[in-house]
Structure formats: structure tokens, C-alpha cells
């Protein structure tokens, strides 16, 4: 059973009178533990796809099965629970809460999930060590460098031990060296079995993934690692 199974996904935005098909007739399957790079020109639907995978958005048509369960029919609160337990996000602009310290930002998903303070403290301490942030624990985001902020964001994304990490241009706001460092951290997570889906503009970064997906105008243009017949079909049907 695939971790993610999308079939016949449509996502239409209405801008005044015109309709934008951000995603059209999209079929995609991703196995647990895969490392997938989503690439393509700006406006091709990469972010829309990632938001859909992360249950931040609902498709207008089609089904989304996550770990065999049809997700699109769940209530908003049930979807929130799935996000809390199974999905970690890493954003281009970090999305840290400015008034909270690094440690509090990392703990936020656990706080929201109602995990007791003692367990939170232990897991945050471990995460701070893992990501080399021990002496930044009490700093607020504006006191951290870009690379440190993204490390806090990754620590936050992994603190609930999710099945998959969704990263939308995680290196977009970072220089080359810190960007590589962040990618290395994400790849380490993938090495420990976490499914990793990264949206990127960067050819070099995309090439490091074991599987590349090319998007164009809301369609899947090319899928390098088409595993299973449905993806093969998608790959052979670029229109």
C-alpha cells in the first residue's frame, strides 16, 4: 500500500471571471520512505500540490488516500489531527511565531497536541542537541540567522515524529552553503525512513532526490521514478 495515492485530482481557483486550473487530472502515488523532488516553472502548481498533500487545502475533485484512508471526506478537526500526527511542514519563509523562543517554537506542535510539559521539555532538549541549537534555545526568531531559523523549523516539523515531511522551497531564502546544510538535514531524516517531498527550483537540489516530478500548468509533465502502473501512465501522458 502506497503512503500517498492521488487520483483524478482537480484544483480550480476562481479569479474574477476566469478560472485557473492549478491542478488538473493529477494522479500520483508515493511510497513510504521515498525522497521526491517536485520541480517546474513558477505557477505550475507545485505549492498547490504540496498544500493538498499536507491537508491544508481540499481538491475540487478526485480522491486522496493517505495510508489507505480517504482523507478528503474527513472533517476539518479530523484533518487537523492527521496533520498533527502524520505530517511535518517546512516553509520557504520559516513561519516561526515571532514572540516565542526557539525552544517554544519547536515545542509548539506538542503544546497544541496537549503533550505534558515534562515530555515536551525532554523532546525539545533532544531536538536542540540534534540540530545544534543548544545555546539558541531562548533566542527569538529575530535573533537567529536564516539557517538557524530553518533548523528550528525542521526541528518543529519533526518533533511529532511524522510519517512525512513536506518542504516548499526550504532553501529559497537561504544562501548556498546554509541551503546545502538544510538539505543535508532533510536527507538525514529521509535516511531514517521519513517520507520527504521537497518543492524546489534548483536543478542541482532536485537531482539529489531519488525521484523527480516535473510539473507544468497543473499537470504532471514527467515523473522519473514512476513506481507502479498509475504513475507510469501519468508519465506517459504529459498533455
Amino acid at each position, binding site marked *: 500500500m502506497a503512503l500517498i495515492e492521488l487520483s483524478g485530482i482537480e484544483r480550480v481557483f476562481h479569479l474574477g471571471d476566469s478560472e485557473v486550473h492549478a491542478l488538473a487530472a493529477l494522479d500520483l502515488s508515493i511510497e513510504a520512505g521515498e525522497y521526491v523532488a517536485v520541480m517546474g516553472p513558477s505557477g505550475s502548481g507545485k505549492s498547490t500540490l504540496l*498544500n493538498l498533500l*499536507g*491537508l*491544508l*487545502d481540499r481538491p475540487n475533485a478526485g480522491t486522496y488516500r493517505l495510508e489507505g484512508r480517504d482523507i478528503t471526506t474527513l472533517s*476539518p*478537526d479530523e484533518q*487537523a*489531527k*492527521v*496533520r*498533527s*500526527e502524520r505530517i511535518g*511542514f517546512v516553509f520557504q519563509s520559516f*513561519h516561526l*511565531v*515571532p*514572540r*516565542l523562543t526557539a525552544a517554544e517554537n519547536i515545542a*509548539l*506542535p506538542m*503544546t*497544541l*497536541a*496537549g503533550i*505534558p*510539559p515534562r515530555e515536551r521539555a525532554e523532546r525539545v532538549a533532544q531536538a536542540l542537541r540534534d540540530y545544534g541549537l543548544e545555546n539558541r534555545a531562548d533566542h527569538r526568531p529575530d535573533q537567529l540567522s536564516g539557517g538557524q531559523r530553518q533548523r528550528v523549523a525542521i526541528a*518543529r516539523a519533526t518533533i*511529532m515524529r511524522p510519517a512525512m515531511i513536506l518542504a516548499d522551497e526550504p532553501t529559497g531564502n537561504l544562501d548556498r552553503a546554509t541551503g546545502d546544510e538544510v538539505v543535508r538535514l532533510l536527507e538525514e531524516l529521509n535516511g531514517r525512513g521519513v517520507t520527504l517531498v521537497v518543492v524546489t527550483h534548483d536543478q542541482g537540489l532536485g537531482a539529489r532526490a531519488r525521484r523527480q516530478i516535473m510539473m507544468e500548468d497543473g499537470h504532471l509533465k514527467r515523473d522519473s521514478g514512476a513506481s507502479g502502473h498509475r504513475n507510469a501512465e501519468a508519465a506517459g501522458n504529459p498533455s
Partner: protein
Amino acid sequence: MRLADTFRFARDAATGNPLRTALSVLAMSIGVAAVVVLTALGDGARRYVVDQFSSLGTNLVIVLPGRSGTGGFNPATAITSTPRDLTVDDAAAILRSPAVKRLAPLAVGLSEISYGGRLREATVAGTTAEFLEVRRMDLAQGRFLPREDWNRGSSVAVIGSKIREELFGPEPAIGQLVRLGDRRLRVVGVLKSTGQGLGMNTDELVIVPVALAQAIFNSNTLFRILVEAKSREAIPQAKDQTLEIIKSRHQGEEDVTVITQDAVLATFDKLLSALTLGVAGIAAISLAVAGILVMNVMLVAVTQRTGEIGLLKALGAPARTIRLAFLMEAAMLSTVGALVGYGLGQAGAFAIRQFFPVFPAYAPQWAVIAGLGTALATGLIFGVMPARRAARLDPVEALMRR
């Protein structure tokens, strides 16, 4: 999310934007302070009047000459009969009523009082020994008027504290002879100072036996008869019997007015309570305005923090958690505002009491409870809408909006 965490999250969110928070706290505190101060003023006025009336004596029935209840001139009685004097014998006759405990006749006039070359004008009250008890007065020095035949006035006087000070200064007053009109009287007592009060100012009073006063003023009529009923319940009976006795002594003519202190007091009490209530109502409107301000502040907070709400949703917060966090924040703003306002209001009432010591400006308990309750309730009610709006936001839209 755990309650303690929600609390901390809301508190940090509130303190994270000091200007916004200070503004709504200020609005709420002004509302509550207004309730406390205004009701303290209203209730203080009521209490002041009630106290003043009580200090005149309790269970009092007051007889005044003349028909009209307000003491005004009544042409009907003026034509049909010459108004009859209210005399000391009338007063003595009232004592026959079983409902009457004691009474004091009162004749009042102005006269000059002098001692050792110092001279001033003073209000002279002619009365009897019972006056002290009926009016609940206290002596600072000496004795009060002697108990004697009401028609035989000894040449003695009891003086108010201010008169004593002006005539005698540091010298002892008791036993000295003063001149009142063309009489020489011995000072036997000095009244305790009471300060400014409703009606007569006893500090500037000279009290002499009623027969003496009538002789000085060359008049037989009394200004008032102060009748004390046996008990509160006996007041109506005392009033009826007093009227009956006077009527029988005045050839069946009802040419006096009898008022009870209770009736006057009850009217004032009702009037001033209504005033306090009205003032509290006005203050409550300012609380509602403060509530609306808290709502606006929270709506702005929701707009400003849309991105944050989106993030919380992305991190798995259900709608309930977000609703609760924003509601808690609104509740905090109004709670702190209410407490600050309570402090300010009490300080204001305290300041009023400092400047006007005779004025008991204490906010009544019902007003304090209602004020705090209204503040918290409006804060919560007006906090619900922004909280619901925040919780309903679409995660992706909220997250992408900056």
C-alpha cells in the same frame, strides 16, 4: 491544548502587542472605574441625607404650627380663622398619648450674646431637658438644662462649641455669666461639636429653658414640638394621637402639621436610590462601549495574526483550540481592565472622601459586583465573534496571507 498552555499562549499574545493591549485594558478600566465612582457618589449622597436625618433623632414625629404640609401660607385657613399659637401647654398635653415616649418643645429666635466685651449674634433655642435625648446630642462639658417646670425658666444656658470658642477662647466657660438680650444667664454646659449638618448648626446654638426664650422673644408660640414615639411601629399611632390632642385643644380645628421623619426619609431614600441606579445605568453603557472596543481590538488581532492562525492549523490545532486561545485573550484583556478599573474607581472614591470627609462616598456592593460582572461578560461576549472568525479561517489561505 492544555488549559495552562492556552493561558500562557493567550497571555504572551496579549503582552506581545502592548499598545493594543493597553488600549483595550484602558477602555475597560475606564468603564468599570466610572461605575464605581458614579455609584459611590450617588450612594454617598443617599447615605449622607439618611445619616443627617438619623442624627436629628430616631422615631421622630414633628409638629409645626400652620395647616399646610409644606409650611406654606394657606389662604383658606387665613380667612376662616386666625392661626392659633402652638404653646408649651399643647406640648405638655401631647405627653398623654400612650404612644409617645418623650418630647421637647422648641422656640427659636435670634439674639445677641455677650461676655466680657465680646459680642455676637446667635440662634437661641428655647426648649426643655428632654431635648438632649430627643435630638441625640452630646455634651462636651457640664450639664444640660435642668429638669423643671416648663413654665418656669431658670437663668441658665447651654452653648455650642463655636460660641464657647468665640466668647471664652481658652478660658473656662462653665459657671460664667453671659448676657443674652437683657438677661444674665449662667453657662451650665457646652455641646459637643458636630460640624456642619442638615438644619440647625448646633455649634452656633445657644440653648435656654423654653419659658425664658419665650420671655426674651415676647411670644407664646413654639417653632416646633419634637415628639419621640415609643418605637418605630408606634410612629403612626403617635402621629394620629398628637393630631387628635392638638385638635381637641384648638376647638376641633386642625391647624398644625404633623410630619414623621420616616416619611421624609423614605422619600429621599427612594429618590436618591433611583438616582444611583440611573447613574449606574449610564456607567454601564460605557462598559458596553468598552466591550465593543475589546471586540474591535480582537478583530484587529485576528487580522494581524492571520498568518499565525494558519500556522497553528498547519501544525494540527483544531478549531476549538484556536477559538479558546482568542477567547481567553479577550477574557484576559477585560479581566485585567476590570481589575484596574476597580482599583482606579476605589482610589477615586477614596480621593472624594479625602476632599469631602462628611460625604460617605463608598460604592455599594451591588454596583461593584454588577460592574465587574458586566465587564467580564461583555469582554467574553464580544470576544466570541473574533474567536469564531479566527477558528473558521481556511488553513492555506490564512497561512499564505501575511
